[in-house]
């Protein structure tokens, strides 16, 4: 039986809508074939989460949404609409 390893695709979207466009992205390869790094591409691999789903990626994490803490309504920090997707690859 073939062994499977996980490929992870992290997509950050313009809004929580899975059809909205990708503003940041990262990939992690569990097969050991490739190591992705910072600044290694100028365009995202997919335009949206839905487009990645249509190519076989499975969404495994939705970003939770929380109201701003009082006094921190205008603070910004991390990218808020982060979706994590996976594919399983045979090795």
């Amino acid at each position, binding site marked *: 039986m073939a062994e499977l390893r996980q490929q992870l695709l992290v997509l950050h979207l313009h809004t929580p809508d899975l059809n909205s466009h990708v*503003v940041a*992205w990262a*990939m992690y390869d569990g097969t050991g074939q490739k190591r992705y790094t*910072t600044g290694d591409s100028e365009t995202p691999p997919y335009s949206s989460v839905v487009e990645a789903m249509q190519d076989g990626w499975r969404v495994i994490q939705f970003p939770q949404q929380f109201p701003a803490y009082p006094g921190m309504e205008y603070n910004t*920090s*991390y990218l808020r609409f982060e979706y994590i997707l996976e594919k399983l690859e045979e090795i």
Partner: protein
Amino acid sequence: MVDKQHLLTTEQMANFVADGYLRFDDFIPDELNKAAHEEMASGMSVRGGGGTVLDDVWHDDSAVGKVFRLPKVQGIIESLVGENPLYDHHAVHIVRPQSQHGQIWHADAIIDIRMHFDIQFFYFSHDTPREMGGTMILPGSHFRRVCETDVARYQNFLGQHPIVCNAGTLVVVHHGIWHCAQPNLTEDTRYMFKLRLNPTVRQLKLWNTDDIDTGGIRGILSRNHRWYGNDVRLEIVNRIKLWRFLIGDESYDVGYWLSRLENMPENVPHVA
């Protein structure tokens, strides 16, 4: 005090507030670039203590000292952090030949909640083509409250900006900007000299304000760096707050952004 001609303009200051950096290409004379490169390659050891007056750190013969004493560099310093800033620290960033992986994204130091800001210079003493790096910065990331490598999971953003440049290029950034060294795929070692400075005076109209009433500032402060997504409006609010701080006018606004939120009328209308 440096001659006014060397100070930044209001438009440049607005760009710094919106983008978190200013870039000066081919800015440092070549003889100084060569001398500074040699100092870095030979392991320059002169290092000041944190909080030392900048002028006291390097002796007159130091090439790096000469770079930061150039009047046009002094003009940048005075415009952003005033005369006689404090030396915080410096670092010679070295990326060895055939380094295949980029540094992780990070902001220097820890969460910094001041409106007052430090600056960091990135000085490139030799040509830095894309295959050599250089430093990647994320425009407009300076207001984000993160602790150093909290952002290490990210890899790519729309609008990320690799500093690819000729020798003698100087970039000055707000202390909060996200950045990372890029892979060096060449056979040569890459050097970048980083210097952090702290203000010792209130950062209030320190630049050449002759163009303070120029009409383009609101447009600059409204710039969208795309990777923000839906949060771009929050970034504009943060820029308005810093611009108010810099010009000393708590009523300044871009369009009707903060004015709307600050409108809390207490007048009770007359009842017939």
